[in-house]
């Protein structure tokens, strides 16, 4: 009984620790959720459809791309392919995070992968890097507020979209790059951090100018990861681990 009560308390505090860490993500994603809802309705979605897309896809950039193409009456399969292309980076996330959450029951893992977004991956990976266990309660504390706010704000944006004032003056279009820079910086203690960042930056910029968006994300990511694979292992610090 006592042990159960203790572990339940532990899960609760883990959950709230995750919630605290989710707050910057909730703030940073709020404008985009509202904007997505507004654009979705503008491009022919109903409020319910905007809500459903946020609830089921739960991937900001891919939803924006999908809705943009929908408004231009592009073939449905091409819209789905574009959503897939924008989200393709998540393949790398799931390969990475699998090492951290393999001890969860399967159903929990299935849920965990569903809410695996950029910040979710980065913050969970940072916790694992600090030598801490990534528990389900903590992970849900981190992800659930982001999900609930994202879905709710998408619907609000769809209903009240016309009321959003000048988004440029408010800096809304550039909040995510700032947030992602912070996440990049938080990994600066990792072996090979600087070479990987430089390789990915250069490759993604070249790909952005030549191949175009959204492929620059996958191409830039592969360049950085390949560099880490090719360089001798002792540079990466993997061998030093027990």
């Amino acid at each position, binding site marked *: 009984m006592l042990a159960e009560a203790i572990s339940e308390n532990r899960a609760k505090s883990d959950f709230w620790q995750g919630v605290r860490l989710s707050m*910057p993500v909730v*703030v940073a994603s709020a404008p985009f959720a509202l904007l997505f809802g507004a654009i979705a309705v503008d491009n022919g979605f109903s409020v319910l459809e905007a809500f*459903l*897309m946020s609830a*089921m*896809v*739960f991937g900001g950039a891919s939803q924006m791309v*999908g809705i943009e193409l929908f408004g231009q009456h592009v073939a*449905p399969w091409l*819209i*789905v392919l574009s*959503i*897939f292309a924008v989200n*393709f*980076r*998540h*393949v*790398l*996330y*799931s*390969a*990475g995070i*699998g*090492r951290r959450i393999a001890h969860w029951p399967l159903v929990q893992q299935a849920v965990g*992968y*569903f809410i*695996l977004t950029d910040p979710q991956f*980065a913050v969970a990976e940072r916790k694992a890097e600090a030598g801490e266990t990534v528990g389900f309660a903590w992970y849900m504390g981190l992800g659930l507020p982001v999900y609930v706010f994202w879905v709710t704000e998408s619907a609000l944006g769809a209903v009240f979209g016309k009321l959003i004032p000048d988004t440029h*003056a408010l*800096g809304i279009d550039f*909040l*995510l*790059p*700032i947030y*992602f*820079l*912070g*996440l*990049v910086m938080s990994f600066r203690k*990792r*072996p*090979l*951090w600087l070479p*990987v960042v430089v*390789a*990915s*930056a250069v490759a*993604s*910029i070249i790909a*952005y100018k030549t191949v175009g*968006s959204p492929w620059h994300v996958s*191409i*830039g*990511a592969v360049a*950085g*990861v390949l*560099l*880490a694979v090719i360089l001798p292992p002792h540079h*990466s610090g*993997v061998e030093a681990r027990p």
Partner: protein
Amino acid sequence: MSTTLWIIIAGAIATYLTRIGGHLVISRFENIHPRVEAGLNAVPAAVLTTLVAPAALGAGPAEWAALIVAGLVSLRGGLMAMFLAGAAVLVLARQFAG
């Protein structure tokens, strides 16, 4: 069912496949080679950089100022302090630089 709904469902399935696919592939291997592990460790910096670099290159003075300040704050402060400082600089700079 409407075409829109089909697009949403197919897009959701495609997205979930990417979110579970990497794990399904990696978990088929008993041992992870050190080089693969080094590659996995590089994933966060590699992917997140691609979400910043082209956006930064295509931006202007207001955005650069915001990124520089956010980058400096992140050396000392937490994620939230970094984010708020960057956002504040961005909004202020855009009032003057457009």
